[in-house]
């Protein structure tokens, strides 16, 4: 096979093997000889707008994202094009190869019966209950905690794009690689980015993720003012669908309701004008009929067995806004920042399953005796729940709607101790280390202070110096930090 050498628009030397390795909707993909990057050529002859847009993406937008403070944080979140090339009249983008974690190490069951080892981890493998159950090697599946982390990664990445004024326009499980073994996610196919008012979208999206208003108007001409094309608002719909699918392995709008006898029209209405959330609390007409499912799609395929309320109150509120209030009212959809914040806090409300079942983790359900919703095992042992409060006016502490579950291995971080610290790309190096940990000793739980100078046990009326500890008992109040924004915790005891 011959190697093609050429000079990219930045002046760098680029090489690729002359064989199409994959084809997308718009591009053919070629590999570099050392497999450190790929070159994707657009099949259609280049319009000037496309060229301009690609140049902007590989220069201005890339620099703004990666060469600013916090830039390295984003390297693992995006597979961002680095250069543009022209060859035989076709225009192409140079894109780094995906990280190793995004290729299957074990693949499918029975010594990889589907031969997917080494293939990229397209999200659909993990977002489908029956595919997970029937095909995936258990070592590839991760657990509920890693899936929640995947959602956090995606929400963060989309939030960053939107902050920069960009819309992805084609978020789907094809364009987001995920790794459930580590909880990483990476957004790919960045070259379709939409810049409002400057570069219009050239795709409407991928089925399952296209916003209802886009589907409902897709038969209108592109220039028709009523035609809705992808934007940040439609990205918000796609993001909500992705998060729902990675947590529940089913689609939020695919239920039993028949909208039309013709399957194509039925799809158009069910994903478009008449779309209806399968778990809508009042309108039950689109509930999933478990008899329609393959046996292997259970229990996740059936919302009655795995309701979305499992995700906890913060995420439920956002799902309601995305799929009930905002499904046909785009302006009401939650933003990526809303998802990020709710996911960060929900991750603190996650507790391990006492039986270490396959899913392994679940969100605290606010009951005295929590039971793992995956396998039915009651939580064994005492489970301290730390309710976080913070103060806006001296001495007056208000709840932050943020709880931290205490289990073996849980840590206290600066963003728990102070409400002005937030775990994102701006987190300073000194704030990345834990400041305390929890230890179970002689039948009681203790918080051990490692780095919080102003910690005080308000109930016992004594300071807790660095190196000291405080027992976690029902009703105990502990001031974590006396600094500005410092938090107070109120302890509740659950478990047995």
């Amino acid at each position: 096979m011959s190697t093609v050498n050429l000079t990219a628009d930045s002046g760098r030397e680029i090489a690729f093997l002359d064989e199409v390795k994959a084809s997308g909707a718009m591009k053919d993909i070629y590999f570099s000889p050392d497999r450190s990057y790929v070159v994707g050529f657009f099949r259609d002859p280049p319009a000037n707008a496309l060229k301009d847009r690609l140049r902007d993406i590989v220069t201005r937008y890339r620099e703004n994202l990666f060469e600013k403070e916090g830039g390295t944080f984003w390297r693992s979140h995006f597979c961002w094009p680095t250069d543009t090339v022209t060859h035989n009249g076709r225009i192409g983008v140079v894109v780094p190869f995906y990280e190793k974690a995004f290729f299957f190490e074990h693949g499918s069951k029975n010594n990889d019966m589907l031969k997917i080892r080494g293939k990229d981890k397209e999200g659909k493998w993990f977002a489908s209950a029956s595919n997970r159950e029937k095909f995936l090697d258990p070592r590839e599946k991760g657990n509920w905690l890693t899936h929640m982390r995947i959602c956090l990664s995606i929400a963060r990445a989309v939030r960053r794009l939107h902050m920069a004024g960009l819309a992805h326009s084609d978020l789907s499980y094809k364009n987001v690689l995920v790794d459930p073994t580590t909880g990483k996610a990476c957004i790919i196919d960045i070259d379709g980015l939409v810049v409002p008012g400057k570069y219009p979208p050239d795709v409407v999206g991928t089925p399952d993720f296209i916003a209802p208003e886009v589907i409902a108007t897709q038969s209108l001409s592109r220039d028709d003012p009523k035609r809705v094309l992808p934007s940040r608002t439609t990205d918000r719909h796609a993001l909500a669908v992705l998060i729902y699918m990675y947590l529940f392995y089913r689609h939020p709008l695919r239920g039993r309701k028949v909208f039309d006898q013709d399957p194509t029209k039925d799809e158009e209405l069910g994903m478009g004008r008449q779309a209806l959330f399968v778990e809508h609390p009042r309108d039950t007409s689109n509930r999933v009929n478990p008899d329609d499912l393959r046996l292997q799609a259970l229990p996740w395929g059936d919302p009655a067995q795995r309701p979305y309320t499992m995700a906890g109150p913060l995420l439920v509120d956002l799902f309601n806004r995305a799929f009930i209030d905002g499904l046909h009212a785009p302006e009401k959809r939650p933003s990526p920042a809303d998802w990020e914040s709710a996911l960060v806090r929900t991750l603190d409300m996650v507790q391990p399953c006492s039986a270490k079942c396959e899913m392994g983790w679940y969100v605290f359900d606010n009951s005295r005796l929590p039971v793992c919703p995956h396998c039915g095992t009651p939580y064994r042992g005492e489970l301290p729940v730390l309710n976080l409060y913070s103060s806006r006016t001296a001495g007056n502490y208000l709840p932050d709607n943020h709880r931290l579950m205490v289990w073996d291995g849980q840590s206290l971080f600066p963003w728990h101790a102070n409400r002005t610290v937030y775990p994102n790309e701006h987190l300073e190096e000194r704030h990345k280390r834990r400041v305390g940990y929890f230890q179970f000793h002689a039948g009681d739980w203790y918080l051990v202070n490692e780095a919080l100078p102003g910690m005080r046990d308000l109930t016992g009326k004594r300071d807790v110096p660095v190196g000291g500890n405080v027992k976690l008992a029902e009703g105990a109040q502990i001031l974590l930090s006396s600094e500005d924004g410092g938090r107070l915790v109120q302890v509740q005891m659950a478990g047995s």
Partner: protein
Amino acid sequence: MRRLLVYLLLDTSGSMAGEPIEAVNAGMETLVGALRQDPYALETVHMTVITFDAEAKTVVPLTPLEDVVLPQITTPRSGPTHLGAALEMLGQQVRQDVVRSTDTAKGDWAPYLFVMTDGKPSDIQLYGEQCAKIRRVGFGSIVGCAAGPKAREEDLRALCDHVVRLDTMDSSAFAKLFKWVSEIIAHGNKSQGTTAAADLPPPPAEINLVF
């Protein structure tokens, strides 16, 4: 969950003997292998394979993709190409297999049909009648492949929405053909453009698309 039923009609007349039929066998392996690496196809695709020479035979009855076991397809030493008879058999099966939507339950997607032949139908009158019937069944897409120098695209055009021509009948040409067919089947899951509606994915260089 809606199913996508895929029907493959493969010519096994005498002229396919030798390298061509071996290439078709290898091509079918490629097709099923490629589809099994597609998580979307695994959820939806069910497949039937019908061969035709002097008689039409169902070599793979409707089977979910993951359970398909491909038999070794063979050819008689010589003999006619009864494509009309194959269509007749296909028509009966499709009417039986496809679950239609009702007011209360969702049915299957409109099925796909692929027809590959290297000659012209010997049962020309029956073929003509059956073409008209098959066109009314409601296939989502019918793709025909005229393989080798003797196959005539005009014959297939009466039946198919798209006809491709395979100039050579060696294994690499068939491998590319079946890979392309797998892409058509899995196409529903790809990004959709803002302009044209349902386009076929681009065929490989060896195939010429005739409209």
